[in-house]
């Protein structure tokens, strides 16, 4: 196995799979669903169980797959699952239990349009589900939003690191466009699977320690509230330390676009088009959606005239932008749905219509 970085031309989905092997993942549990089935297919073809020892298993359902992740994570292993929107809905029960048991794991959502069976085309309509909890109860995932095949690969390792640092599930919120498109990607060298056993993991009780119990049950009200407060404290720490974003031409911007993932790529082009017409437009791309770059958006709103949130949804992230701006300047949403990727000139036209108005 190579110890060097390697340049490959890959689909975003394939990059996730290859990066998982190279990151030293212990286990992958999946179920086929378009547009992300290449991840399971790639792993089955790559046979990492013969090289790194990584377990790869096709589960009987998304429900089973996420509960396999729970079991593996409870043993302190680096485990992950991937799916697309309808499948992620099925996983929400398990994700809530994983958050409640404070287990580290990686979940990838290659989002397609909905609700319901919807479409298999790309969308960003699972934002609420990803950043506001998703399942029942008070909890958050750490949510990473890749905008390239390179980031699909890079965020696998980053996701595992953050998951273990905070004992919290991490979601990569991608979409069908990034999952399916091919780009150049630099892949990191193969990392050995970790032999470290976290002190909380269920690996068999030895005489030198108390038994380890993985559970999310707190029947006593005061005990449950204490646990909720512990989670709040953890999320506050994450908010203070892990906000990641990128800015593009924001220094002098009168008008700031806020967009993540595929929409951010579109908006980069929109900024260039608007600038060519003499409009001072910039782009802020949240890389983490939870924690959200609220502070930076608030700062930008003290000197910009308007913010336009661009998402391939009916307007979900815009609610977090509105909270960050807190009424200081007008905030608008623009986005296409149904699997239609917004065109750069549509964004510029919409922006101009609001400036004119």
């Amino acid at each position, binding site marked *: 196995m190579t110890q060097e970085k390697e340049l490959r031309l890959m689909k975003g989905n394939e990059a996730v799979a290859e990066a998982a092997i190279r990151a030293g993942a*212990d*286990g992958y*549990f999946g179920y086929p669903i378009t547009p992300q089935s290449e991840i399971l297919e790639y792993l089955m073809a790559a046979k990492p169980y013969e090289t790194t020892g990584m*377990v790869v*298993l096709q*589960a*009987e*359902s998304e*429900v*089973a*797959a996420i*509960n*396999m*992740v*729970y*079991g*593996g994570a*409870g*043993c302190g*292993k680096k*485990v992950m699952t991937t799916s697309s929107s309808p499948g992620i809905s099925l996983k929400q*029960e*398990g994700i809530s*239990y994983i958050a409640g*048991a404070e287990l580290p794991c990686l979940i990838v959502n290659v989002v397609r349009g909905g609700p319901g069976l919807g479409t298999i085309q790309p969308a960003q309509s699972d934002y609420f589900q990803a950043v506001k909890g998703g399942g029942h109860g008070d909890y958050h995932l750490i949510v990473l939003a890749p905008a390239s095949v390179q980031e699909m690969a890079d965020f696998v390792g980053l996701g595992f690191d953050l998951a273990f640092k905070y004992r919290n599930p991490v979601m990569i919120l991608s979409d069908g466009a990034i999952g399916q498109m091919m780009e150049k990607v630099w892949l990191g060298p193969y990392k050995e699977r970790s032999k470290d056993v976290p002190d909380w993991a*269920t*690996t*068999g*009780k*030895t*005489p030198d320690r108390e*038994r*380890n*119990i*993985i*559970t*999310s*049950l707190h029947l006593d009200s005061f005990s449950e509230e204490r646990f909720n407060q512990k989670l709040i404290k953890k999320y506050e720490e994450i908010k203070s330390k892990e906000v990641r974003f990128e800015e593009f031409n924001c220094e002098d911007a009168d008008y700031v676009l806020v967009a993540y993932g595929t929409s951010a790529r579109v908006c980069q082009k929109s900024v260039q088009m608007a600038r060519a017409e003499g409009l001072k437009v910039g782009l802020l791309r949240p890389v983490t959606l939870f924690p959200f770059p609220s502070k930076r958006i608030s700062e930008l709103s003290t000197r910009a005239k308007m913010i336009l949130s661009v998402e391939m949804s009916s307007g979900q992230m815009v609610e977090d932008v509105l909270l960050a701006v807190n009424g200081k300047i007008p905030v608008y949403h623009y986005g296409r749905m149904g699997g239609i990727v917004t065109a750069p000139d549509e964004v510029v036209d919409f922006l101009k219509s609001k400036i004119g108005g």
Partner: protein
Amino acid sequence: MNDTNQMNDIIKPGNIVYKRTDLMTDDILHYCPGCGHSTVHRIIAEIIDEEGIQSETIGISPVGCSVYLYNYIDIDCQEAAHGRAPALATAIKRLMPDKYVFTYQGDGDLAAIGTAETIHACNRGENILIVFINNGIYGMTGGQMAPTTIPGMKSSTSPYGRDVEMMGNLIKMTDIVATLPGTYFVTRQSVHSAVNVRRTKKAIRKAFHYQKLKKGTCFVEVVSNCPSNWKMTPVESNKWMEENMFPYYPLGDLKDPEKQQEK
């Protein structure tokens, strides 16, 4: 002083005929008097203790009365979402193939909401033990009809008795999993008498033994009682179980290849 000396003379290892199993914790069992759960917990604890596999065993507790299994047996445990224990066990065993992994599940958990996880884990032949406590009722939620509730049996959601026309038939999960190629040892036992306790212990010990040999899924059903929700005394409930449950759920091995070889 003299009395104490006499007591110390009596209480010595050589004279002990019965004691609390070392692997049972000091926690007070929350089970109702006469409930079979406590007995099966003790059997599992005894076997892990006697086999010396505490440091190699991971248990998975369900949602239901036995959710707190992890409070009572001094081993590493995970608590699963309702019905999902076999999925957890699958991953734990595959990631740590040399450990012993068992699930402990009730009939609502295993035979209703967890049907898919149960059947597919068994069909893949996961090297795990599934202990299935079947008392024909949802205990913790207060006595609702279970998939294993027998025809005519009253529960809070079948207050006039289970009407098969309206509510469907009971399901025999043990018979179903015995037909799957992935299962190796499938048996149905009970713990309502001393002889049955011994048989159940023998079956569960055998299942741990088969797991060490990586033979496939072992499935031990224990037909049990629920005095509180059946609204009977413990003695009445055991009698009712013998007369009414056993005809639908006859005791004995459904699948044991090594037993056939012995013949």
